């Protein structure tokens, strides 16, 4: 071995080691608000080291492909990450995740055709390991790729966000999944000299399966699915590591797979919905479940005016703001803080109730309110704030729906029955800021709106809150 090759190897493994350490430290630091930014940079530096060392390690073979790919990818990635509105973040994460899954599938596909066209001399065991891992990583990567794209389309509302269901759906899904599995087993069994049609068929089945598997999922379950797909991509990357004999991929992919799974379970737990329900129990869609909400459009709702609400708020002792996706869509977070400032000037105590899945992702509301400089100590988790509603004069609901739906507590036939909710109906008055009487993301009616304590203020959340700010000011 020449000194140059030795240096290359040492640098590569050192960079791998450094990257792994930086990833783990980064994740650790990301677990606390004070150090989160440092954590993200640690991980980014680790990534940079790993990529640079890898390019040197291969002596920049095919450098122009790497150059073009990195240039194009950087432009697309940076542009979309910096341009995206904070409200559209969840679908952006889904899209980046899909890119990772797609990359894993492309790598495995390339590896398959390399093995088919120019078979290297491998021992039979190693050949089997390579085929097993390339097939598995291709399937998981493809599912993650197409699934993430559907998740993106749903969240972006380029297609219906509701669950898409039809008769025999699970049978069709099982059939497609099974055919991918059978082809995969066939490829593994031959481990070489595989007809390419088998591989392409398997890949196609996996891509279709990804689409079918996300289609019936909708409503408030979407964040859980994105998190799940994120951990899928992690697993695909880890298995790509087995395929390419690369420990960095194994460790990093596994880290993401494991932490992503944990995060997914945390989210499921926050909604009191086991993962199997999320995946197989289409939210508020399957026939009989609709009955609970089929009582027709609510009749007894009371609409109110900005001035009335302003008075109610200004003379309250305590107001709890319940933000939801409507606030995010309207970008009303700055106005909300302004309103809170005005109210506090008048001696009203203002708190924010953050449901774990308010918005489209856990922590979504926290990020938005932090952007508007809402003091951290005014934000309360569900468990901390629920006892407070009984002592509260006004619960001000800004574009939240399903997380306040009392049907989750007392209508066993409701699709969201059992999901922990914010007990807004315990407050003396409930004010709901809402665009229209359209039902929430889960697509079910909210009996809260017919509660005699509830008044509705229709309109864009930002316009309504701005109106309230003005009205409170002049009081």
């Amino acid at each position, binding site marked *: 071995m020449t000194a140059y090759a030795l240096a290359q190897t040492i640098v590569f493994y050192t960079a791998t080691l450094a990257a792994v350490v930086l990833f783990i430290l980064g994740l650790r630091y990301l677990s606390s608000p004070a150090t989160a930014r440092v954590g993200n940079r640690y991980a980014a530096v680790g990534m940079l080291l790993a990529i640079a060392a890898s390019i040197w390690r291969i002596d920049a073979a095919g450098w122009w492909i790497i150059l073009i790919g990195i240039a194009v990818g950087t432009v697309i990635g940076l542009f979309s990450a910096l341009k995206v509105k904070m409200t559209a973040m969840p679908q952006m994460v889904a899209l980046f995740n899909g890119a990772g899954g797609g990359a894993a599938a492309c790598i495995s596909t390339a590896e398959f055709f390399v093995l088919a066209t120019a078979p290297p001399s491998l021992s039979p065991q190693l050949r089997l390991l390579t085929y097993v891992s390339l097939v598995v990583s291709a399937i998981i990567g493809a599912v993650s790729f197409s699934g993430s794209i559907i998740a993106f389309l749903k969240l972006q509302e380029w297609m219906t966000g509701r669950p898409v269901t039809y008769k025999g759906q699970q049978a069709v899904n099982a059939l497609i999944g099974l055919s991918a599995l059978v082809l995969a087993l066939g490829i593994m069994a031959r481990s070489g000299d595989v007809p390419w049609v088998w591989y392409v068929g398997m890949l196609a089945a996996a891509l279709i399966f990804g689409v079918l598997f996300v289609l019936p999922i909708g409503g408030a379950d979407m964040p859980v699915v994105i998190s799940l797909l994120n951990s899928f991509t992690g697993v695909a990357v880890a298995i790509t590591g087995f395929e390419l004999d690369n420990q960095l991929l194994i460790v*990093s992919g596994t880290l993401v797979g494991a932490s992503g799974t944990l995060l997914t379970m945390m989210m499921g737990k926050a909604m009191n919905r086991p993962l199997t329900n999320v995946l197989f129990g289409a939210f508020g869609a399957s026939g009989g479940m609709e009955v609970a909400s089929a009582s027709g459009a609510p009749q007894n709702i009371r609409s109110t005016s900005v001035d009335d609400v302003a008075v109610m708020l200004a003379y309250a002792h305590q107001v709890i703001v319940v933000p939801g996706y409507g606030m995010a869509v309207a970008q009303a977070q700055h106005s909300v803080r302004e309103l809170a400032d005005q109210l506090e000037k008048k001696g009203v105590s203002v708190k924010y109730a953050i449901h774990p899945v308010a918005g489209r992702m856990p922590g979504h509301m926290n990020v938005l309110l932090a952007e508007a400089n809402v003091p951290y100590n005014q934000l309360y988790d569900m468990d901390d704030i629920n006892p407070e509603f009984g002592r509260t004069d006004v619960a001000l609901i800004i574009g939240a729906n399903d997380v306040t739906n009392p049907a989750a507590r007392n209508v066993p036939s409701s699709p969201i029955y059992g999901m922990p909710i914010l007990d807004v109906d315990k407050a003396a008055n409930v004010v709901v800021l809402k665009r229209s009487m359209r039902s929430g993301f889960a697509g079910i009616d909210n009996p809260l709106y017919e509660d005699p304590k509830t008044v509705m203020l229709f309109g864009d959340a930002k316009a309504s809150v701005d109106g309230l700010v003005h009205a409170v000011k002049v009081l």
Partner: protein
Amino acid sequence: MTGLEFVSYLFDLLLVFALAIFVGFEVISKVPTTLHTPLMSATNAIHGVVLVGAIFIVAAIFNASLSSPLFIALALVAVTLGTINVVGGFAVTERMLQMFKKKDAVKK
């Protein structure tokens, strides 16, 4: 590689794999809800390390002198998608976390 060497090779990788599972669970077991979204986004960026795999597959293709358009296209798409994952992932996480910085500044 003999059968024996293969077993030791495979188990080295499996050992790393098993340990990484535990580290992955442990490292984020105590995370406030506030940080769920940035954390998901950061783990999303970290699996962008698949780009390293893409770089190695480019080398494998070139070292085997395979220059048909299929290989070039697959390699190019793999590198591009991997880069989008890395760059987009870290950038969007950084953006989310900027908002925490602002808040800290105000507090001080």
